[in-house]
């Protein structure tokens, strides 16, 4: 298992290297010019040239890449074009909000999606199963920010149960204040993943419960409940974990618009603001950090395969 984990970790190194190169070159190809943006609208050509020199943009491409990538390794992503704040510290300031949102969403996804899926699988083609399947299709058809708007209107404004905007940290409002500021956005972000997880769980359980060895245990007289838990759960786990891993990617994407709707000062809201301002180093840093998050989650997903199914440790 340790060898498997080490191999998996090592294999991420070239991917991360290539990703950093790709992202850097992508931004290099963009028509936006950091010097022009930074110098402001009324800058003279001389001023722009001065800014260009100060930002080190006259250096050759490869040396700028190595500067940037070297900084990336040390956790230094450069400086914002606007606030003269370091990109790293700005992102770190924002991450707890997004992490809270992701945490609450993930809890919702697992607590709602899994039981729904198992229930549907135990009674395939019942009214419950069909109802859940239609509900899942419906959930998947509403983009997260649209659901967020609906929730904000319904439970923030018409029925003022939760605050429709703003974030309350644990330090300011205690656990309950923190949670109530996150309930609506978390539901908005979690709806699609819940539907997807339920669908995947149903499918995996149906596949496993129909398999011969499971039917044999059932024939042996094992109670249905333990058949589902002992045999179903273990064998259905791998595809479920896969889909769960994919949801992190989705939550990160959904947070962009949802944080904007609920005015949560998180990573996604920062992304929107920086993009609108064309704050190139900040956007570059945001893309890089989200890439690292996704790669780490993928590694964790793969490692959990190894734990769940020793045959995967190849």
């Amino acid at each position, binding site marked *: 298992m340790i060898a498997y984990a080490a191999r998996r970790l090592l294999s991420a190194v070239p991917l991360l290297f290539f990703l950093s190169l790709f992202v850097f070159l992508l931004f290099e190809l963009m028509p936006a010019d950091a010097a022009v943006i930074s110098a402001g609208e009324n800058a003279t050509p001389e001023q722009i040239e001065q800014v260009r020199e100060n930002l080190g943009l006259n250096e050759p491409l490869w040396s700028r890449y190595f500067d940037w990538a070297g900084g990336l390794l040390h956790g230094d992503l450069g400086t914002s074009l606007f606030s003269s704040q370091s990109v790293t510290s700005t992102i770190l300031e924002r991450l707890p909000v997004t992490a809270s949102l992701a945490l609450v969403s993930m809890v919702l996804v697992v607590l709602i999606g899994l039981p729904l899926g198992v229930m549907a699988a135990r009674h395939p083609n019942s009214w419950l199963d069909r109802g859940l399947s239609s509900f899942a299709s419906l959930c998947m058809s509403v983009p997260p920010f649209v659901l967020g708007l609906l929730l904000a209107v319904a439970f923030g404004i018409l029925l003022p149960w939760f605050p429709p905007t703003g974030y309350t940290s644990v330090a300011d409002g205690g656990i309950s204040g923190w949670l109530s500021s996150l309930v609506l956005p978390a539901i908005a972000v979690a709806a699609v993943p819940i539907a997807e997880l339920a669908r995947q769980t149903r499918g995996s359980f149906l596949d496993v419960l129909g398999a011969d060895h499971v039917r044999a245990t059932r024939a042996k007289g094992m109670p249905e409940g333990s058949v589902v838990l002992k045999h179903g759960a273990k064998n259905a786990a791998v595809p479920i974990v896969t889909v769960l891993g994919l949801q992190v990617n989705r939550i990160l994407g959904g947070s*962009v*618009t949802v944080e904007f709707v609920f005015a949560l000062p998180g990573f996604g809201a920062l992304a929107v603001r920086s993009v609108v301002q064309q704050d190139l180093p900040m956007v570059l840093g945001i893309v890089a950090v989200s890439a690292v998050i996704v790669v780490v989650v993928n590694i964790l997903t793969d490692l959990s395969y190894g734990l769940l199914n020793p045959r995967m440790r190849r």
Partner: protein
Amino acid sequence: MRRRREMTIDEASGATRERRRLRERRGVRQFVANRAAVVSVCFLLALVLLAFLAPLVATHDPDEQNLLNKFQSPSAEHWLGADLYGRDLFSRLVYSSRVTLLAMLQGLAVASSLGITLGLIAGYAGGVADALLSRVSDAIMALPPMILALAIAGILGAGLTNAMIAIGVVLAPPQFRLARGAAQSVASETYIEACRAIGCSPGRILWRHVLPNISSPLLIQTTFAAGVIVIAEASLSFLGLGVQPPQSSWGVMLRAAFDSIYQAPWMVLAPTVMISLTILALSTFGDGLRDSLEGRGRTRSKRRRERVESAARSSV
């Protein structure tokens, strides 16, 4: 004597031919029998019609302002009410369907022309080109699509076309992988070798022989991609990076509703319904297509893999 024997063989093959025809017709029948899929096709066709006939359907000029009607609730005059500037929301909704279709066309054009062309080349040629293109495709797929699309769209500058270039780049990798895989497997077929034997150029083989033979999976993939584009257009326009006001799109209308959420919360509803129905119709249509084009001979493990793949595919 020889002639006679021929006849019986012809007849025998005639029987199998008839069976095969029936099987093909079953694909169409299967689709038609899928009521949800038929309803979704009708909805999509109606949407296209709505876009073309927008001037006839709309009751008002979508951009005409009348401050007297500011935030008017739905009424006989304004079926869906009026917005901050007193513009008729129903007419804006109708005209917005044009933007949605245009967005789909642009986004799919970028995604498919990049993804399919490069995928065919990579899959057929292999070697360095394949390795390099596959790396790039993996890199794009490793990034959260919404963040990447946002970054590209934002730096290209706000506007529908730029937003769709961005989303096209993000959606190209699934098309690339599909085309590449299909080209790889088709390239090893005998009929492709037979085409080389009569002197077809690689370009002709890819365009005339490989592409038509992988058109069904590509079509299915494209349908799902169209759904993602609707979401992306709405999201980017909502954030102010897509369609620019005063031009109207469903995303722009949601933004307007968001900006006056305390004064007129009901404004959220109409664009929400349109967006959700369109996405629902596209995904139902895609499922129906997949069942009727590829439904035969799928094993359980293959279905399972498809589920995981479709979960990965539809992420924005």
